[in-house]
């Protein structure tokens, strides 16, 4: 079950980051350098935002 949640999260992240990073007309079957960098940053920043939300919610509850 843990494994399948990781997989489904991976599919969702791919959809989110595809929309943000692959924005120009498709002219090749290869990701270019900018797209690669954008995709990695997208996953990392999404995880940062995720952690910040959880932390913020925990602080709000403790107040």
């Amino acid at each position, binding site marked *: 079950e843990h494994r399948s949640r990781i997989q489904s999260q991976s599919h969702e992240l791919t959809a*989110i980051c595809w929309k*943000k990073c692959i924005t120009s007309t498709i002219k090749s079957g290869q990701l270019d350098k900018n797209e690669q960098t954008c995709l990695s940053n*997208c996953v990392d920043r*999404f995880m940062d935002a995720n952690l910040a*939300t959880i932390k913020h919610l925990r602080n709000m509850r403790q107040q």
Partner: protein
Amino acid sequence: ARILIENINEKCFERCVPKPGSSLSSSEQTCLTQCMEKYMQAWNQVNATYIRRIQ
């Protein structure tokens, strides 16, 4: 609460981080915090209106 958190993350990341860089900028962080608070308020209000309506 898990669905609420997932929705907040998705909607607020979409809004506040249009071009993901090598770290979250301070304006992106501010936007994420405000967006989260706003989304929770919106959810509370929608919830209250909806419950009132179906009673």
